[in-house]
């Protein structure tokens, strides 16, 4: 069979650089399972390599800032729940603190503690969803099932305290919707004990997992200087070596009364940001534990019926309370003229509310500094030079919530 004319079989030596490849432009999303909503990414690809990635947003834009100008201060809160639907408590807190800063009032200790407790539970729930979705994006489906189990526990607490699971609208300007009862305290104590074990469980599932490490180490690298240039805040920045947490450095509510550490990682890749968030969950549990054990007694609302509704029993028998109730319902609370910017630490970065008040019951201008929208700018930088499959890892590490990005 063999003849001398048959050419010997040799493996052709392939040099990738010798191929002339065309740049391919591709859309990823808006309907893509790993874009966590309606994020569209314009990609320029050279084979599997990403040359350029540009996020296109706005598919969920509802004009919340414009709507807020037509609503009284307390009516803005339900809109904000629909911005960051994974950590609505933190958005509640950011807004009411901003308006309270305009009024120059502070809550009694019990109110402040309950707010901190609720925000830290929201942070844990939000990080649970981030972890589950992030791990699922890169192929580890198990984690998702575990984290969603714990998210349910957090949402049960929210449901118990305010009747809603996600869009809570729990906080009010000058106070809270209602008090925390003993049953809720028991639930939270149980939740703390559960979370302590479960965080270590996630840790065992992923941290030393070779597939997870392969998919995340060295991916999406950013330096601290690049973070500052792009104004990246929150866990994304702390994973790049920026030691800054508003809860510690510019404390609000009662955060200055708790002992906790701010985990900072220098590596700046997806894995470092993963470790950072896991550590942050541990610290959140630590804050929760201190807050629930030291929960003070006493009133939880400010003592000023020009800001917060008087109790219903009082309204029924007291003329003055009745008038306050009527005025607040019709006109809303009226902060003095002025403008303020109130930064708080949301699970995704610095959440800022800039409110300009003209002395009426509605904000003249309310601007939300939505952290993910600004963090999202780094997507192109993080994806550059990596493979297409790494784009989903980068989206995961940015912890995108499109309701918040799109306002």
């Amino acid at each position, binding site marked *: 069979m063999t003849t001398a004319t048959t050419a010997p079989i040799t493996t052709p030596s392939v040099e990738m650089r010798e191929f002339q490849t065309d740049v391919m432009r591709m859309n990823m999303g808006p309907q893509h399972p790993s874009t966590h909503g309606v994020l569209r990414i314009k990609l320029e690809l050279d084979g599997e390599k990403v040359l350029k990635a540009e996020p296109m*947003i*706005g598919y969920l*834009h509802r*004009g919340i*800032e*414009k*709507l807020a*100008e*037509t609503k009284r201060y307390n009516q803005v809160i339900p809109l904000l729940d629909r911005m960051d639907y994974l950590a609505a408590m933190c958005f509640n807190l950011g807004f009411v603190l901003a308006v309270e*800063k*305009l009024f*120059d009032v502070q809550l009694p200790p019990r109110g402040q503690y309950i707010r901190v407790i609720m925000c830290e539970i929201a942070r844990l729930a939000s990080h649970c969803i981030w972890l589950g979705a992030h791990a699922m994006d890169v192929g580890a489906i198990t984690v998702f099932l575990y984290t969603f189990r714990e998210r349910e526990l957090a949402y049960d607490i929210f449901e118990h305290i305010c009747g809603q699971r996600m869009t809570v609208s729990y906080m009010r300007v000058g106070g809270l919707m209602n008090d925390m009862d003993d049953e809720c305290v028991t639930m939270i104590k149980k939740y703390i004990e559960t979370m302590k074990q479960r965080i270590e469980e996630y840790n065992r599932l992923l941290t030393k997992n070779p597939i997870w490490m392969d998919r995340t180490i060295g991916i999406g690298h950013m330096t601290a200087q690049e973070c*500052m*240039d*792009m*104004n*990246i*805040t929150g866990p994304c920045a702390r994973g790049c070596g*920026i030691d*800054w947490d508003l809860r510690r*450095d*510019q404390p609000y509510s009662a955060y200055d009364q708790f002992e906790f550490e701010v985990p900072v990682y220098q590596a700046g890749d997806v894995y470092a940001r993963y470790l950072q968030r896991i550590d942050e969950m541990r610290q959140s549990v630590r804050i929760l534990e201190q807050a629930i054990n030291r929960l003070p007694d006493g009133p939880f609302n400010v003592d000023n019926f020009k800001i917060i509704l008087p109790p219903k029993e009082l309204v029924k028998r007291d003329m003055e309370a009745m008038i306050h109730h009527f005025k607040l319902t019709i006109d809303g609370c009226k902060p003095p003229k*002025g*403008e*303020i*910017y109130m*930064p708080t630490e949301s699970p995704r970065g*610095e959440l*800022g509310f*800039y409110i*300009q008040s*003209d002395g009426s019951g509605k904000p*003249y*201008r309310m*601007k939300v*500094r939505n952290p993910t*929208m*600004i963090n*999202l*700018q780094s997507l192109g930088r993080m994806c550059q030079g990596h493979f297409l499959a790494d784009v989903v890892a980068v989206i995961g590490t940015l912890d995108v919530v499109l309701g918040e990005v*799109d*306002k």
Partner: protein
Amino acid sequence: MNVTIDHTGVTERLGQRYAVLGESFRGEQTYTVRKQDLLDILTALKNDAQLQFNYLVDITGTDTRPLNGAYTLCYHLLSHKNKLRIRLKVLLDPGDLTIESATSIWLGANFQEREIWDLVGIRFLNHPDLTRLYLPDDFTGHPLRKDYSPWAQDTDIEGFRG
């Protein structure tokens, strides 16, 4: 060496040169600056060894025509070193709604300036890609202006009329 600077320090180091007027409300310091000085001031604040305002946290555009007949831009700066925040304010004449883009100093200003162009209609010169951020490209008008009605029956967008 490790001197912490507060608001008076900022005023001392910068106020005489640029700030037209400083006002304080609830512990927040506002400097109103002239449009043509803005980039110089931002650069100075960022690079000054003592001040080190390393974050341009937020840019807000507001239609303040009913209040003072101008548009207002607020730049919120943050210094990690001094744990200090200041606000720079620029008033823009409605007849000339342009200002130099801050993207040459902070890349992160990109989306925020696109957002302001989209919603308020202030044009940023020398911006790398000044297109609408949230709204579709064929959208007319800038919704956060005060003369733009928030109600559907007042808009003439097809399919949106109430």
